[in-house]
């Protein structure tokens, strides 16, 4: 499962960056194409190339929530795009034409922007994640990004880094000085869903074992049941995941657990049908949501959220369970309260982040 590109495509302008040097040392003998500038649509449609470029935009941005649903107020630190794990439902397939992983080599610029951003808003609590446009730990064994980010956040009184992953590549985290400012998070699904829809990602057991190790090293962990998938027997499937989760992980050390049913831009539907003709994730009925994304019909969403919430709180009543991109009425019906009753979703999570 370890990510090993077939070829590197590197912009000449970043040839001297420490990140490039490290990658070339770690992958001796790999073929390299040196290019002046990489366009959005590079070759290697099968995703086997690693593209290393200079990123010229803003590295840190708010999560693109919509006004129709409750957004968690997350911020994204964008250090690369795309992912090689090949989940059938991955939204990135609709965002980017190329399937190659692309890494931004000017890490110094990113860190400078990040520190300026944090310095400029000291009063605000920042929950920042790197796993929005790629998997946070996919390239870690290759580029050791965590060695830069974890200590940096450890020194920030008002910020938390969330590393979201479907891998079990946590070895490098063991000896880092995190001071409780890094949360390591896994997306979870039943083993049969992982086998069918997330076949390039780590199996459930490996993810939970990695979470257990992180807890041992003092990290808080988080879990995202996202996307929750409705399939015949989903109730039992998710019950088993919850059982296995709590036999591996201590509930007191869980920062939060999010729930979000499958949703996607309509353009992704055709891509999924073409790339994964045998997947059954499109079998359920979908309706266009207020944000234009296709999602399960609300009654099914409410049923799934209520079921999971009951399972989770049945094990530990103090868990912080939240819904990702849902409206107040769905919150109330599924969880019994709306975020506004607890000061808003963002504030709820901020309190957990720094507790």
């Amino acid at each position, binding site marked *: 499962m370890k990510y090993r590109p077939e070829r590197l495509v590197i912009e000449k302008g970043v040839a001297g960056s420490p990140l490039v040097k490290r990658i070339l040392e770690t992958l001796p003998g790999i073929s390299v194409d040196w290019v002046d500038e990489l366009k959005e649509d590079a070759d290697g449609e099968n995703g086997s190339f690693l593209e290393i470029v200079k990123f010229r935009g803003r590295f840190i941005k708010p999560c693109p929530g919509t006004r129709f649903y409750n957004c968690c107020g997350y911020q994204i630190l964008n250090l690369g795009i795309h992912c090689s794990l090949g989940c059938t439902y991955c939204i990135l397939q609709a965002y980017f034409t190329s399937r190659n992983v692309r890494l931004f080599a000017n890490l110094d610029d990113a860190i400078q922007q990040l520190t300026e951003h944090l310095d400029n808003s000291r009063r605000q609590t920042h929950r920042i994640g790197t796993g929005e446009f790629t998997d946070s730990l996919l390239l870690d064994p290759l580029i050791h990004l965590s060695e830069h980010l974890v200590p940096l956040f450890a020194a920030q009184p008002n910020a938390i880094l969330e590393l979201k992953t479907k891998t079990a590549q946590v070895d490098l985290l063991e000896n880092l000085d995190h001071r409780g400012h890094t949360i390591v998070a896994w997306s979870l699904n039943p083993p049969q869903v992982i086998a069918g829809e997330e076949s390039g990602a780590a199996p459930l057991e490996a993810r939970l074992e990695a979470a257990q190790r992180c807890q041992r090293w003092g990290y808080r962990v988080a879990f995202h049941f996202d996307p929750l998938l409705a399939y015949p027997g989903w109730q039992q499937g998710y019950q088993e995941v919850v059982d296995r989760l709590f036999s591996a992980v201590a509930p007191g050390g869980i920062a939060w657990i999010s729930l979000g049913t499958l949703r996607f831009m309509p353009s992704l539907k055709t891509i999924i049908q073409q790339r994964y003709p045998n997947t*059954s994730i499109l079998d359920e009925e979908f309706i266009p949501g207020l944000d234009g994304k296709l999602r399960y019909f609300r*009654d099914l969403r409410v049923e799934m959220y209520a079921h999971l919430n009951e399972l989770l709180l049945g094990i530990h009543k103090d868990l912080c369970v939240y819904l990702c991109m849902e409206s107040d009425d769905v919150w109330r019906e599924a969880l019994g309260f709306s975020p506004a009753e607890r000061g808003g979703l963002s504030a709820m999570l901020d309190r957990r982040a720094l507790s």
Partner: protein
Amino acid sequence: MTEKESYSIQLDEVDWNDASCLITYGPLPDKLTLSIQTVGLIQKPLLQRNRDGLLRIVCGSRRLAVCQQLGLEPLSCEILPTSISPETCLRMAIYDNIAQRDLNPVEKSLVLTKMAQHEDQAQLIQEFMPLLNLEPSTVIFGRYKKLLLMEESILDAIAGGTLHERIGFVLSPLEQGDRFAFFNFFQELPFSVSVQEELVETVVEIGRRDNLTPREVLDSAEVNDLRRAHKRSARQRVQEIRKQLLATRAPRLTAREERFDREVGKLKLPAGVRVVPPPYFEGPRWSLECTFERGDELATRLRQLAELADQPEFKQIMESE
């Protein structure tokens, strides 16, 4: 300018099997036959002698076909020298046709498919798709190229305008039996193009979910009963079949709509008042429609509605199961 010479030819000199420059598709227009019958060939067809000594048609295939039908020969034609490349001949055929008329979708597909043998795809898309009044896009190019893989009767319907090319696009990836099941269905009942598209998607998805072929879905007892309910008008049958198939595809939404109708029915709303749920019951925005003719009528309705809003039955309508 290309050098060409006028010759008088016999029709058995024409290589009718050489379709390399043929981009016309569809029945011969009656007006063309009438014109040739009445005043003879006004514009000379353009041909090129091939290696076997026969004449390949470059421009004027329909004029020549009419002449053949009418037994008109010898014919005065223009003949291109053999030095002219097949690509140039094909370009002549294309430009000659598009200068005179709009091509039908099958002909557009023929242009793109035949030119693809000579030209790189990106250039072809940029040069020829706008000429054919098509948006220059790889996706649309791919759709047109696949049209030609379908059976003749379907292509005839597309060329003749009884089946929209958009439906051709969605039918082309299907198995032959499924394609014909849809084709016959659409020829039988007056579905609009957008409903036809929706039905193909719906039926294919039902089939995928329930492990049935689209043909089996269309052949289900429920659909067949509605299809054969000849006492109802074709329009009614179309609506009912559509409703039936959408309900099969979206049972949860359908159940919710039915429950909503039942519960609203029990409320006994005042005349002229309608409760409208949010689209797909998504989001908090419900609305109320109230029609009235006089101010006192409005006041009465509002009083009645205020009472209604407090009733548990009304609140229940807004909750999910």
